[in-house]
């Protein structure tokens, strides 16, 4: 492998950040310029949203269930087993619902976007699109970003709900708790700040998933091997970006919204 100077390496990274920022900004800016490609948005919403539903439901349900199982022992030791509904509820709504949904959708769709757009780049289909007078960012990137943001919002809500259902299953079947009490605790503990945090995160994560996937796809070089590399990089980058963003957004919102 050829060794590169640190200066060249740094320049390349700065250029990549610049290109990503431009792509992300244009994907939003294109929403205010015609044509809007509404049909493409609906198609992508179906692929991303409906297509991701099974994995999001399974992930949410079993995460809620295992959360209840893991914490039951500790809560029992302090005689607070009835608080299990509250614990599952706040954990799922504030954190695990949006983050795990984001990670699952990133694994499924960032890779899909990177490989689809990457294949189009290496087979000159993107150049052909430009030659035919169509802006590929407007036609391909903006619909994917819009659809992912929109659908991840609702997928996270579904994940929260099925996570609570998973916790209920454990509480009822293995801990012999009252179902009504579980739901009542789970519902009453939530405050506006929790819901706001839980609904803001998927919007940010959806934007990250789509822009990162599209960026790696649009910059893929080097034939099928390059497309494979772009696909892997897209999943890794999107997942890490989600977790890092999650930390800073959580910290910021805790400071701003004065959580108890």
């Amino acid at each position, binding site marked *: 492998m050829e060794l590169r100077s640190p200066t060249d390496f740094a320049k390349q990274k700065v250029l990549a950040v610049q290109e990503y920022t431009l792509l992300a900004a244009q994907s939003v800016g294109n929403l205010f310029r015609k*044509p809007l490609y509404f049909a493409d948005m609906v198609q992508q919403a179906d692929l991303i949203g409906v297509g991701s539903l099974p994995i999001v439901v399974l992930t949410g349900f079993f995460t809620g269930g295992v959360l209840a199982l893991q914490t039951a022992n500790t809560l029992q030791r302090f005689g607070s087993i009835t608080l299990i509904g509250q614990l599952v509820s706040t954990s799922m709504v504030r954190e695990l619902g949006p983050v795990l949904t984001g990670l699952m959708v990133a694994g499924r769709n960032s890779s899909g976007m990177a490989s689809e757009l990457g294949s189009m780049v290496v*087979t*000159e*289909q993107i*150049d*052909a*699109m*430009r*030659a*035919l*007078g*169509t*802006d590929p960012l407007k036609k391909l990137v903006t619909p994917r970003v819009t659809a992912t943001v929109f659908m991840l919002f609702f997928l996270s809500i579904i994940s929260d709900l099925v996570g609570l259902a998973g916790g209920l299953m454990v509480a009822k079947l293995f801990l012999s708790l009252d179902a009504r009490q579980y739901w009542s605790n789970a519902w009453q503990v939530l405050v506006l700040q929790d819901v706001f945090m839980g609904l803001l995160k998927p919007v940010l994560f959806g934007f990250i998933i789509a822009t990162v996937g599209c960026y790696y796809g649009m910059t893929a070089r080097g034939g099928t091997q390059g497309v494979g590399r772009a696909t892997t990089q897209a999943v890794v980058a999107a997942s890490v970006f989600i977790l890092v963003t999650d930390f800073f957004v959580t910290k910021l919102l805790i400071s701003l919204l004065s959580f108890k």
Partner: protein
Amino acid sequence: MSAPSLPIDQTDAVAEQPTGSAIVFEDVHLSFEDNDVLRGVSFQLPYGETKALFGVAGSGKSTILKLALGLQAPDSGKITVLGNEVTQMHERDLFPLRDKLGMVFQESALFDSLTVRENVAYRLMEERGVYDEAIDVRVRESLRFVELEHTLDLFPSELSGGMRRRVAIARAIITQPELLLYDSPTGGLDPVTSNTIVELITKQRDVYRTSSLLVTHRLQTHQFDPQTSQMRVLPRGQYCDVPMTFLILRDGKVIFDGDIRQLAHTEDEYIREYIS
């Protein structure tokens, strides 16, 4: 193979050509890292003329087409296409200009998730938003021109290499562009399929007089006769009757730019060897 029937009324065909040049390259330089691809390339393509670009692989022929379309930007120099200086234009402003151009890519570059019908109709659907009857008529007309009307609902992966090139030609000509760019349209194809494609290009040149840049390795000595709808070999003395010139690139520089007579009488050993 016989020539396909003409799809469009011939009265529309040879429209009066504007004066001047469809493409002007002025001292264009381009390099990738340490590799100088183009070193001061200058030429003009007058309206209504077809210019064949010759040169060995890697001499910058395809790059010239991409520069003319504004898909790449040169390091220096000036490129004017249909009166617009593309080297000074923003990507967003290039899209309306590209509506007036047609490009046939080396590997066809058809959209693999769309059918032949959708590929050919792509530009019209982008304009109108829906696939209507008027578009369907033009799609069939365009596909009839390349003799592939029966492939309407097939996907590009179901076509042979030659058929894909012909669909790419149909896609490029459907809006009757003012300028056509062909990137090795016969490259890698068998002689029979190559002849069919050369015939289509020749017909576009001789019937519609569309200004064209053609990257090729074949010296064309045929003319399309609209009266008989047949190709005919030109007698030696009539080579200059067709609106065709030749440009030869070597090591990123233009070493020849002229018509067939000048090409035939060149003293340059390299050129003589190349065309022999």
